[in-house]
């Protein structure tokens, strides 16, 4: 059994998911997500030791093809749909800070 979802948990998860939540949203989502997790407690009460987890319905295995070069999507066409591009590449705001 798990402890009820706290407001601080939701704030932490929002940071991990790169989402900014208002105070009202934090309150609402804490309640709503708590309800879903509470419903899930019907599972956590089960003794499932020894049950093998299923991540994929048909036990997917690696799929290989011959190593032959085939045409790819056109670079210019892809970059045309990007918010920002520069010199044939995707462009983003600065990642590193100023040198000290």
């Amino acid at each position: 059994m798990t402890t009820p979802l706290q407001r601080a948990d939701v704030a932490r998860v929002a940071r991990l998911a790169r989402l900014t939540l208002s105070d009202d949203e934090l309150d609402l989502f804490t309640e709503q997500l708590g309800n879903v997790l509470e419903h899930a407690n019907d599972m956590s009460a089960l003794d499932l030791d020894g049950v093998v987890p299923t991540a994929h319905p048909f036990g997917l295995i690696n799929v290989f093809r011959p190593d032959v070069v085939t045409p790819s999507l056109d670079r210019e066409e892809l970059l045309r749909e990007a918010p920002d591009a520069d010199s044939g590449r995707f462009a983003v705001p600065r990642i590193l800070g100023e040198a000290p």
Partner: protein
Amino acid sequence: MKTALSIADNVRNGSSTAVAELEQTLDTIAARNDELNVFLHVDHDGARVMAEAVDAAIARGESVGPLAGVPIAIKDNLCQRGIPTTCSSKILEGWRPPYNATVIDRLVAAGAVPVGKTNLDEFAMGSSTENSAYGPTRNPLDPSRVPGGSSGGSAAAVAAAMTSISLGSDTGGSIRQPAALCGIVGVKPTYGLVSRYGMIAFSSSLDQIGPFSSTVADSALLLEVIAGHDPLDSTSLPESSPSLLAHVDDGVAGKRIGLVKELYEGSSPAVVAAVMGAAEALREAGATIVELSIPELRLGLSAYYLIAPAEASSNLARYDGVRFGRRVDGEDVTAMMEATRTAGFGAEVKRRIMLGTYALSAGYYDAYYGQALKVRTLTINAFARAYQEVDIILGATTPDVAFAFGEKAADPMAMYLNDVFTIPTNLAGDPALSLPFGRGDHNLPIGVQLLGPGRSEAQLFAAARTLEIADGRA
């Protein structure tokens, strides 16, 4: 009501043309789309070029495909080159995919004419289309009610006779539930039967593309066209497309059909009566009805609402304002990503991303996600045991008929419970379909659901056809 089969026949034999069929579709869309909000984008020019190409091929005496000249509506989470594809999200507003989904290529090769992109719950997360960033779709049978979701636009396109067929996707019931609420046929195929290359991913171990239509035969035909191995989708099954249309009149004589109480109990009295009526109709057609209980199915909803959000939180990490779609500027790259995602996603998508992130996070993984994956195993094993006793399972698609706008929108858990009968099939990777059978409150249609083991689509269509005749919609 025009079927895809009749349109293609008429186009091929010269009593109609692809252009004439398209113009009629465009007229119907123009007449009702403002009211119903079915299409987010109509590709008038592109569709005309495709229709003219079909007519030109026929004029040259070339053989044309089984969907020659049939207009079709496409759920807006399927990529079509150069056509705006939004997933009903602000975060993809204005984006034009640089490639076609494999299903689009197969439709065009079969002579079909994609006419436009239909509304859905944002990123296919929802059961009413109320989560679309572009406004809800209205149910053509009663515009004060939802069409279901997430593929509500594709279901409404067929229910409003804008097109005879359409494509949707089903992760936890997103084809079958709107089919039930709109009174049409909707099919969730076996996992891997239809290539998902070019489908915008929600929950990759559950998502599957499938058909909507007014008749059972049209869904069989459409599934035949889009199914079969695709090297571009590594989860695609190795075999070629199965023969389905040829088997729709096979009937159910000698079949054993399981009436599973966990798939209708708790429904409205009219829905329960419809399921019992369907069982009786199948029995009269020569099937044996076996009453079954599969208690594990009750756990499906809980497992699904951890597994699907967990996969979604990973799949939707790609919407970071870098490679496609919308960007909201920030002082550094992290601030840009956070501002982009905060402005671009709606509330339900945020809820599911956070639920999934939480279920996968350190300290909670075993209790939630890990436990859900084990329950998935229980579901698969329980279905496998049932299919040793019966060939097909019968149940309801939804607990009740189409609900009113706002009725469930404020309470996510109430909305999720609408999927309680459809979710277990997705967890197992098996096929299932919904078809209208009888009517409920307010004279609205009821959907009954037929489920089978993997790759059993042909016998599901045969059983569905039996019910279609029994319901007087032959």
